[in-house]
């Protein structure tokens, strides 16, 4: 029995990992603090929000779509959840409401894309304005402060020394990995992204599959929002600015094809850590903002070139 699909996965992900090791190696040499345990935990913690968003983005991208609206969806979930908590609702209710808002936004994106027959890029571009506007209107533009300590404790605690957000995102990543690789939904996502027409004729529930992808993306945006909510202790309607670009970059660095049909959870996670490590290392080296921007641009492209060079060996 050949193991080729597995080898395939491993080789792609190995390329991404190689990129991470290279970047990590350079920083380790340049600044001694980089490789210390607290700093590595720090990088993981800082990458956790992007990772949360990027998990959903990866599923959406695999299904052949894209979700530009994640940031504003996060903001809308955050302000609704926070308003409920501040208004005295039990934490569980507020959390569920935030998740509900995220999934509702995802549902709306998904419905416009599937039943409306619109292009995902343009639907979620519209959503980018729409959901942000709703968050601003809901709050009148001012942040909501005064979240209960019980809620904040959830995100600021640690489990065996690992910050809770990292634990939560690790669990979600495991779930996403299982969904993608071990469930019918995962197969459907790859089939729909790989060849929607063939999938439809084969009886794949194309509409439901896409709806699921966007709803998962919305829900994960809400989770990211809740994590950040706990960390900040405040819900801002401007939360989530530019999150979509970071998440897409992470997924792409991790080997997802924006044409759909291909992507890897492990690759995406490594992609997130690459971006986080980059930011961390550049700050530690006290690189000026303009040069940080320069380095970000270069590293994204170089990471892709490394990935590409590794993938090339598979004969793609």
């Amino acid at each position, binding site marked *: 029995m050949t193991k080729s699909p597995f080898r395939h996965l491993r080789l792609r992900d190995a390329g991404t990992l190689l990129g991470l090791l290279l970047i990590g190696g350079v920083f380790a040499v340049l600044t001694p*603090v980089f490789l210390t345990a*607290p*700093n590595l935990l*720090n990088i993981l913690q*800082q990458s956790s*929000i*992007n990772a949360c968003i990027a998990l959903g983005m990866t599923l959406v991208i695999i299904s052949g779509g894209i979700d530009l609206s994640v940031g504003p969806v996060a903001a809308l979930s955050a302000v609704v959840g926070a308003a409920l908590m501040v208004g005295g609702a039990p934490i569980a209710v507020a959390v569920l409401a935030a998740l509900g808002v995220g999934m509702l936004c995802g549902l709306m994106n998904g419905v416009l894309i599937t039943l409306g027959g619109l292009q995902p890029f343009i639907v979620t571009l519209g959503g980018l304005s729409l959901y942000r506007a709703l968050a*601003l209107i809901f709050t009148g*533009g*001012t*942040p909501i*402060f*005064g979240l209960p300590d019980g809620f904040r404790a959830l995100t*600021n605690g640690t489990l065996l020394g690992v910050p809770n957000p990292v634990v939560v995102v690790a669990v979600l990543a495991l779930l996403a990995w299982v969904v993608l690789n071990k469930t019918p939904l995962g197969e459907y996502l790859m089939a729909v992204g790989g060849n929607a027409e063939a999938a439809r004729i084969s009886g794949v529930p194309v509409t439901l599959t896409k709806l699921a992808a966007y709803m998962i993306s919305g829900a994960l945006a809400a989770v990211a929002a809740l994590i*950040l909510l706990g*960390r*900040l*202790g*405040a*819900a*801002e*309607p*401007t*939360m989530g*600015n*530019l*999150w979509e670009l970071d998440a897409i970059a992470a997924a792409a660095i991790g080997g997802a094809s924006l044409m759909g049909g291909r992507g890897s959870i492990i690759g995406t996670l490594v992609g997130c850590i690459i971006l*986080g490590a980059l*930011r*961390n290392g550049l*700050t*530690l080296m*006290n690189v*000026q*903002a*303009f040069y*940080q*921007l320069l380095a*970000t641009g270069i590293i994204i492209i170089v990471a892709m070139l490394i990935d590409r060079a590794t993938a090339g060996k598979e004969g793609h």
Partner: protein
Amino acid sequence: QDLTPLNSDAEPDRMDWSELEARFGPMPETPAGTKVGGVSKTLTNEYWRSLGEGYANVAKAEGLEFVYQAAQSEGDQLGQLSIAENLITQGFAVLLFSPQTDANLIPAVEKAEAAGVPILNVNDAVIPSAKNYVGNVQKGNGVNVAQWFIDNRPDGGKVAVIEGQPGVYAAGQRTAGFTETITAAGNFEVVASVPADWSRELAFNAAATILQQHPDLIGFYANNDGMALGVVEAVKAAGKAEQVAVFGTDGISDAYAAIRAGDLTGTVDSFPVLTGEVALEVALRLLAGQDLPRVVATPQALVTADNVETFATSDMAALRAALLAQ
């Protein structure tokens, strides 16, 4: 220990920067080589670069080790948080934060507190839990401009506001200060108040459209200088430079040039270099154990053709003198 959430414009426990020396004496000695750091919004805007210059001036004078970092772009909230967190572990004696939003640096503030690193909130967005804040009164920017119209255009008339990014604290406060003050005067009407997202191009377009609709407009107030300079071009293109007064906010060097050239009517300068100097001085005083009020207000002045040369100096001592004389 429990602080009320800070509102920098309304906090009663405050003082003006000019009283620092009188009330708390000369600058205390700081051990040479002490590490201080600043985390600012972005370097793409001259305002924040100038603030850093102010920090650097003091750091150099006192012989401190100094690091100044900023997010990669305006609005990069998490990026700025990462930077702030990454600095906390580096053994700084004090950190000066200018956050992107009111909330985005809260975790860093808490982490710093846990690590025993004092934090000073410098300008613009206000961290509600900040123990100390140095900066100007955002609302005052708009009030200053409105006051100019009330004083110089006694007949009243139509005015318009070009706002910054929706949802940003400074934009909201500046607009509110202007609109509330000028409306209270009775004979002015704010006929348009629209966002241009800090963009010169969008400000140009919005101003052109507004002039189309209200040919008898007498003035614009823009939430920052970049947008004001866009408005100036639109006003000139419409041939209404004589009729329409244009004001900005911040006092960047291009605004000064435009005021000298007679293009821009005025700006509310909040003297970022001086603000930076004052901020680091306050930080060092706090380090030395001085018990300063929670808010130290930094200077701000309406700059027009009348007084532009007074304020257009890079000699901070002279500037301090001029402001103190006001």
